[in-house]
C-alpha cells in the first residue's frame, strides 16, 4: 500500500484516539517524544508492559472482589495501582474509570464495584485493540520504507 496512504491512516487513527474518542491524553505524547533512533521500540515496549500489568491487576481485582469477605482496602489499593499505570501510559478513559471505581470502594458498595470492574475490563479491552491497530499501521509504514509522521 502507498506509504502516504498508510501515514494518513495513522494520523486519522491517532487523532481519533486523542481527540474524538479520548482514549489517549498528553502523557502518551510524552512517551512518543521519548522514542528516538536509539530507542525505536520504546512506545511498543512500554505499552506491552502496560498490557501485562493491567491484565494481572484486572484478574487480581476479580479475585479480591470474589472473596467471601471482601477486603475493600485491598480492592482500593489494586485500583490505585491500575490508575497509576494508566496515568503513566496516557490511557485516559481507563484512568477515569479507575477514579469511579475508587469512589465505589470508599462506599463499600460491592455491586457497584463489580459494575466498575466490568466497565474497566471493557475500557481496557477497547484501548488495547485500538493501540494494537495503531501499531499494525506503524509496522506497515516502516515495512513500506516510510516513517511515522510528526504530530
Amino acid at each position: 500500500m502507498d506509504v502516504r496512504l498508510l501515514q494518513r491512516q495513522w494520523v486519522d487513527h491517532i487523532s481519533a484516539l486523542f481527540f474524538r474518542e479520548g482514549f489517549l491524553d498528553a502523557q502518551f505524547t510524552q512517551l512518543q517524544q521519548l522514542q528516538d533512533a536509539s530507542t525505536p521500540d520504546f512506545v511498543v515496549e512500554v505499552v506491552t508492559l502496560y498490557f501485562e500489568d493491567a491484565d494481572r491487576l484486572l484478574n487480581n481485582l476479580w479475585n479480591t472482589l470474589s472473596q467471601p469477605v471482601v477486603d475493600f482496602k485491598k480492592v482500593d489499593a489494586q485500583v490505585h495501582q491500575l490508575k497509576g499505570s494508566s496515568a503513566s501510559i496516557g490511557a485516559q478513559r481507563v484512568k477515569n474509570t479507575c477514579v469511579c471505581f475508587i469512589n465505589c470502594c470508599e462506599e463499600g458498595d460491592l455491586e457497584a464495584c463489580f459494575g466498575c470492574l466490568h466497565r474497566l475490563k471493557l475500557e481496557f479491552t477497547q484501548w488495547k485493540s485500538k493501540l494494537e491497530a495503531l501499531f499494525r499501521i506503524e509496522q506497515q509504514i516502516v515495512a513500506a520504507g516510510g516513517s511515522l509522521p510528526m504530530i
Partner: protein
Amino acid sequence: MAAPAGDCGRVLHVLAVDDNSVDRAFIVRLLANFRHRVTAVESGVRALELLGMDPDVSMIITDYWMPEMTGFELLKRIKESKELKKIPVVIMSSENVPTRITMCLKEGAEEFLLKPVQQSDVSRLFSRLMR
C-alpha cells in the same frame, strides 16, 4: 526530541526505585534521555542492597507507595545512614496529598514530584544537582 546536550559533561548515576514495571520503564527512559547512568530497582530493600555495594549514587528517585517499604521509609533509612545521607532523594507519587508532601520534605527529601513525571521536572532536578 533530543535531550539538552552536554550538561557540563558530568555523568550522574541515578538510582530509580518503583515497584510498577510501566512506571519503572518510563522513569528510566526519562532519566536516560539526559545522558546519565540509570539503575532501576523494584523495591526499597533492593535499593538499600545496591547502595550497600555501591554508595556512589548521585541521586535517588523513588515512588512513594510501594509494598514492604514505602518511599518515605526508604528516605528515612538513607538519611539515618552516615554513608548515604548526603545523597539527594526525590519522592514521586501519583497522589497530591499535602501532609504527605510536607512529611517527606521535613524528613529531608530533595523534592516531591507528582506522577506522571514530566521532562521539565527531571530537567530542573538535574540543573539543581549540577550546581
